[in-house]
């Protein structure tokens, strides 16, 4: 059984990755893990972009450009997030997200 992968398959993978990311973001208490979940969400979007580009507008490169941009931004975001996490660790000796609760109001 040899099925040629189509748009549908890629979208399924994107959706699965997206919800794994959401789940991880909402349930993990470790900030590093949460950051990784966010990366998963971003990558699921990347897959969608690429898939739409390839199957619906094959002659263009718009989707690929967006993907490249998102990867760049994800890198920058990771740098910022990790800086925040390090600062939090320095002040609270923990990277558990619940210790940051006191910053409410």
């Amino acid at each position, binding site marked *: 059984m040899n099925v040629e992968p189509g748009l549908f398959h890629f979208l399924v993978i994107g959706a699965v990755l997206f919800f794994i990311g959401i789940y991880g*973001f909402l349930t993990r208490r470790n900030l590093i893990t*949460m950051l990784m979940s966010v990366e998963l969400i971003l990558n699921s979007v990347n897959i969608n972009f690429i898939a739409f580009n390839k199957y619906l507008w094959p002659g263009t490169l718009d989707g690929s450009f967006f993907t490249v941009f998102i990867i760049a931004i994800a890198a920058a975001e990771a740098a910022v997030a990790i800086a925040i996490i390090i600062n939090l660790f320095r002040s609270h000796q923990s990277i558990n997200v619940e210790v940051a609760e006191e910053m*409410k*109001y």
Partner: protein
Amino acid sequence: MNTTNIILIPLLPLLSFILLGLGGKRLFGDKAGWIASLAMLISFVLACGVAMNYFGDHSADAYVGKVVFSFPWLPFGNGLKINMGALVDPITSLMLFVVTFISLMVHIFSLAYMKGEERFHIYYAFLGLFTFSMLGLVISSNLFQIYIFWELVGVSSFLLIGFYYQKNAALAAAKKAFIVTRFADLGFLIGILVLSAEANTLDFQQLMINLSSPEYTSAAGEFMGISVLSWGLALVFIGAAGKSAMFPLHIWLPDAMEGPTPVSALIHAATMVVAGVFLVARLYPLYSIAEVGVQSLISSIGAFTAIFAALIACTQTDIKRVLAYSTVSQIGFMMFSLGIMSEDHLGYTASMFHLFTHAIFKALLFLAAGVIIHYVHSNEMQDMGGLAKKMPVTHIVFLLACLAIAGIPPFAGFFSKEEILLNAWNNNRPIFFIALLTSGLTAFYMFRLYFSIFWNKPHHEQGHGKKEGSWFELIPLMILGVGTVLAGFVPFGEYVSADGKPHHAPIDLQFSLGPVGIALLGILLAAWMYFKASSKPEKTAAGFGVFYKAAKHKFYIDEIWLGFTKGVLFNLIGRPAAWFDRNVIDTLVKGAGSATQSAAEGIKGMQSGKVQQYGLYFLFGIIIIVSVFLFTQGGR
């Protein structure tokens, strides 16, 4: 006509106010007075130029009002716009001259009189503000503009009366003056609204044209049997009566004597109180077509005020208070003269003439009183007496002014009072007799004052060797003294009349016999009672009994107003309003606050600080938005 000059006349005092008010002490120190006086001098010269220019222009056979400039200040659309402009006509030219002249004299006089005051520069700043407002008032070209300056005059007089703000009496007097005139201004404001709504314009000249046109008069509305025009004019008159201290709103003027004496000369004798007379004169063409009721309201209130204030003046012992009541009385003369209409409009000319001469001799009286008060350090007549030899200059000018106000020829007051009386004789006999009696009383109380100050008993501080006053004080007195002698010879009717055409008012010598005779009688009576110290005044006072006591207490008008304010205004309006404010308004305001607060307490918990909770809210939000979007737009 030079427009720049007209604009500069009020602006120079304003400039002096700004300069001295902002940096007076630091920039100029003791020179503040000189700066202000210089500005005033230039203003005076310009005003003379404008007046001479205007009256010297004989190209038309009548003097007509000219709007020199006018620019739209507040255009509201629908044809309603408020302009700022300058209207020059005979009374404007006259007032420009009078106000700048008196103000200049007061400025010079104060250089010596107010010397060494802590707030010397502030005093001059306030004088500048006051003069600016008064000048702005007289050149106003429309009702709204005159109202603005009218209120400015009120504010600056408040500041000047309360100049000695450490004194409780001065503070109370300042507040009283402000509140009473403000109260009257309510009538003025409503009057302005009525008149402008009727005429569809605020501009004076257009107002006269619109309201006297046959189309308007045939279609004019009525309210309670009286035409709307007359209602508006009566309301405007209430404002004028407040500013000009007409009965029963005269109570603020005598108390306003708490201000520095030169200020009394400026505000309460010469310029501010005539603002009301000026306003009525400005709207004279309208008053002359109004119903007889309005005219007789003006003339009867004026006449009653004249005799009422004269009676009080006879009993007062504070010299400034006597002068204040005499001012009230003389303003009454001007007012009733405006109210007595006749074919030839002699009343208008006479009233303006009296305004002119009165300004000069009353300023002289007040400034002289200032010199005397400085000399004896008291306001009370009993502390004076026998000053004739000590203060020769003051004595002579004071005598001149007293003769002028009593109406003895050939001094200024004679000519103007004569015209007023002649007009009353021709058109309203009862008022003529009231005015005649008032003339006698005027002569009596002025010479009572004169004899008590300068003769009566020998001066008790013998050989003190004090100086009468510095030259800065005496020179204005002399200038005003010369004015008092000469002002009556100005052929006034040639220049100022209701229709702008020269008005020849011959002096009828036979007619003059009565008023001059009764004035002489008053003087003789005063001389008999007060020339030598005696017990005659007390005996006479006892003879009048209750009546004397009532007059001495100013007929209890102050008490009546106080009772009215406390009993009626406070209880019926003040307290319910306060209750309403405290219980209804406050509840609403506080309720709005506490409702917001409790709502905030309720939803505060949502802001938990848990990042993942926020993420969840965010997710649900997205899901809801996306599903709404899909369900509504999905069909496409």
